[in-house]
């Protein structure tokens, strides 16, 4: 008798197309036979059927269930991905946003048919306004980057409405997310980068030198992507505002200050929020997000539509006719309503006390993890500073001594069952790991993570080849990115 080889726990899977058999189908999903479309002109019809797989319902369920098992996720692993706020996504948020009546409602149905959903959206608008200290909020943008776009477009609309057309530049600190400069360009602006000082704050002298009558605005993340609060925020605001520019708050790190300090109180003119971070809507393998924007008084007329308004207890959408100066629509309908409903559930579950606890415990977890890692011999990028909700470890010394890079280190952490922190961002700290534990992780998890970090560091020092070749226990080993880009294989093709 030959040797029995048990299958590896997560076998490398075939494509769904490889499972296709001509004539097989998920019969229960057939709507039944229908008459031919004999009224349609023949020259507009499709010849060959589309090359979709022919599989059974069980084939589909099994294939995609098994694919899901090849993912790391918050529900299965600690996911300390800096700047992404991978906190627990409460199941109630999903269950309640998927009630049948909510799912079935057509986007163009009258407001009379949607008083329930519109009430939730209106309350979410009000709650977001309250936690950010802004004068008005629009839920229209469908993602953080779209919120950024809306924000900068409003800055532009404001200057244009005042006949102040010479302002053509947006200032962005070098630590900013790549979306900031990319957004400024999409809004027709030029980008001026300014440096960060050694403490991780914006370099005020560089800022003073950069502003002028050409300045449309400044985009700032606070706490910054370096994981520290801009201590000179009041000066920054004064410098930009005195020059006639507006200030933009990138809400990527709002989780760090929720309920502690509000962007409106810091003097910002416009902000976006990532509800998939701070308000715990799912990341979904990369979307859908939601990126509501908030504005100060002077930008109110420019908010993207639709807005939800309440008149004597009746909710409706305010559109073009109500909002003639709006920068316009971001989506065909009302934005990512299903995501907004999940955020509403989350906000109602937390309430005002719960929202304050978010920043408290996010900061506690981050500072504890930073302290423990420092104690274990890791270098913090800004050891003199308080961590906000995240912090940076730099592996520069380890790399110089062993050749093991931040990327190698991150890959080895996967073997220990931890999702890697963000690597190589922000760009100005060499060999960096940006670590954000979030408030929903328990001390025991953080301790286990520290132990894994220590173990990998020991391995790097004693057995660097092991770390450099990691991961070893996942469905695939390290992938050839160069080949992926050079020999593009982006779609499956039927064998000839």
């Amino acid at each position: 008798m030959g040797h029995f080889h048990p299958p590896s726990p997560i076998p490398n899977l075939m494509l769904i197309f490889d499972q296709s058999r001509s004539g097989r189908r998920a019969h229960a999903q057939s709507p039944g036979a229908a008459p031919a479309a004999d009224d349609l002109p023949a020259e507009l019809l499709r010849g060959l059927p589309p090359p979709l797989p022919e599989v059974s319902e069980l084939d589909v369920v099994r294939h995609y269930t098994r694919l899901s098992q090849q993912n790391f996720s918050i529900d299965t692993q600690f996911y300390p991905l800096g700047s992404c706020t991978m906190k627990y996504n409460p199941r109630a948020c999903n269950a309640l946003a998927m009630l049948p009546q909510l799912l079935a409602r057509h986007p163009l149905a009258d407001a009379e048919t949607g008083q329930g959903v519109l009430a939730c959206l209106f309350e979410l608008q009000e709650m977001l306004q309250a936690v950010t200290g802004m004068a008005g909020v629009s839920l229209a943008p469908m993602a953080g980057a779209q919120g950024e776009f809306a924000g900068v477009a409003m800055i532009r609309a404001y200057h244009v409405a005042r006949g102040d057309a010479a302002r053509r530049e947006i200032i962005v600190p070098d630590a900013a997310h790549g979306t900031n400069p990319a957004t400024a360009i999409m809004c027709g602006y030029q980008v001026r980068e300014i440096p960060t000082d050694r403490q991780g704050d914006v370099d005020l002298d560089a800022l003073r030198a950069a502003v002028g009558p050409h300045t449309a605005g400044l985009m700032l993340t606070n706490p910054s992507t370096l994981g520290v609060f801009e201590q000179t925020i009041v000066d920054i605001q004064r410098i930009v505002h005195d020059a006639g520019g507006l200030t933009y708050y990138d809400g990527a790190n709002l989780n760090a200050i929720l309920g502690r300090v509000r962007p409106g109180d810091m003097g910002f003119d416009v902000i976006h929020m990532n509800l998939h971070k701070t308000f715990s809507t799912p990341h979904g393998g990369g979307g859908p997000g939601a990126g509501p924007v908030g504005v100060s008084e002077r930008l109110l007329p420019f908010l993207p539509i639709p807005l939800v308004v309440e008149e004597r207890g009746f909710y409706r959408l305010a559109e073009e006719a109500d909002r003639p100066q709006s920068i316009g629509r971001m989506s065909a309908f009302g934005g990512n309503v299903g995501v907004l409903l999940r955020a509403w559930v989350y906000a109602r579950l937390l309430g005002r006390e719960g929202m304050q606890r978010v920043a408290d415990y996010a900061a506690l977890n981050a500072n504890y993890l930073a302290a423990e890692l420092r104690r274990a011999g890791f270098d913090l990028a800004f050891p003199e500073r308080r961590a906000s909700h995240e912090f940076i470890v730099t592996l520069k010394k380890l790399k110089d001594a062993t050749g093991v890079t931040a990327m190698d280190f991150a890959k080895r952490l996967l073997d220990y069952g931890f999702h890697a922190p963000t690597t190589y961002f922000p760009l100005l700290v060499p060999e960096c790991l940006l670590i954000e534990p979030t408030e929903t992780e328990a001390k025991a998890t953080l301790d286990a993570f520290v132990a894994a970090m220590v173990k990998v560091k020991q391995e790097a020092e004693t057995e660097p080849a092991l770390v450099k070749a990691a991961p070893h226990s996942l469905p695939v080993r390290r992938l050839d990115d160069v080949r992926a880009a050079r020999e593009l294989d982006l779609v499956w093709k039927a064998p000839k």
Partner: protein
Amino acid sequence: MPFIPHTEQDVAEMLASIGAASIDDLFDEIPAELRCAGLPGVPAGLTEMAVTRLMHGRAAQDGHWSNFTGAGAYEHHIPAAIWQIVTRGEFYSAYTPYQAEASQGTLQLLYEYQSMMAGLTAMEVSNASLYDGASALGEAILMAVRANKAGVKRVLLPASVHPRYRAVARTVVGNQGIELIELPYCMERGHTLPEALEAHAAEPAAALVVPQPNFFGVLEPVDALTDWAHAHGMLAIGVVNPVSLALLKPPGQWGKRGADICVGDGQPLGIPLSSGGPYFGFMTTRQALVRQMPGRIVGRTVDMDGRPGFTLTLQAREQHIRRSKATSNICTNQGLLVTAATLYLALMGPQGLKEVALASHARTRALVDRLTAIAGVTRVFSGAYFHEAALRLPADADEVLRALRAQGILGGHPLARDYAELADGILVCATETKTDDDLTDYAQKLSRILSRRREAPPCAYKS
């Protein structure tokens, strides 16, 4: 404390490790005058039980409707398996697959999705999705302008394209000095006339947008329009309904050379209507234009042992690498919705999808037959239509729709809001979800409403 696992002992030990006396101390770098005392504008927290009761009440308030509105969002049956799998934590609570080895599930699924969309549209490559169909059109216009070597910043946009898509395209491209030229449609047939394009033949443009079917459900002469665009040095951007492509000629086969970029909304593929979102936008194109394409793209490659695997690729186009030189500021896509659409397309297969398209079209034809049998109800356009049609009512459209709504029917979308010349026009749609009884119910109610109005016009009971 919802979702905070810390015990008092944990907090004490952690503060001791940090060397802080209290959690308050952790915020000591924030200027004191900026800190807020509390959040009076936010209500107190509720238990899950209380929020559940509240939300069930609100959902019940919104109720159930017999819906005959399409206009860019379509009520199709959604197989039960789809959302049970999509909401598995491993898909639901994962993030963008930056760590490829720990994200093979999402990455392989996206590769399969790209393959399905490329196949459905008969184009060479696909991205991993954009926000929605309307913003995808905006991105396609930016892409066509980027690809134009002469730097032409003008795009021809027919008025028969969904009005909301045109509005979003204006928002997306408006700040980059791109001119969108609106093309009229034929009032009799309801589509763009190739001869009407000749007025624009002299001025260069980067692209012509070609919707199929167009907003009115009418089929456009896509071959002639695509060929005209190419003859005048423009790209052709197709805007399509993915379900229709099981039946209609795909953009990659339009005209002699096929469309260059194809976009649309993926909502009909297993995504609930949900008051407008989240949906997803798709984009497919030619291989030659792939480096101009925005959004995430997944490629198949091999690992160190030569085994196949999947990874994000061509990231040099993207904001996190290229910053101000990126093709777009887009980061995430609509991953979870793409997951649903991939399962939908796999479950339906080529035959199932064609049956959905045929059944939807047959129901709409039957609906149009029954409604136009009522005195005074006529089709607005004579052109062939797919699965959606514009009808003219012998009365004020808003009033009739209100009366239908009072009887539980969402009778369609009024056209006057976006097309002043089509006052009294409504756009109706029936999909495979509608039974014969549903169609009869709609026709009978409409007939009664219209005949009551003939007997007693509104002014009679106003006085």
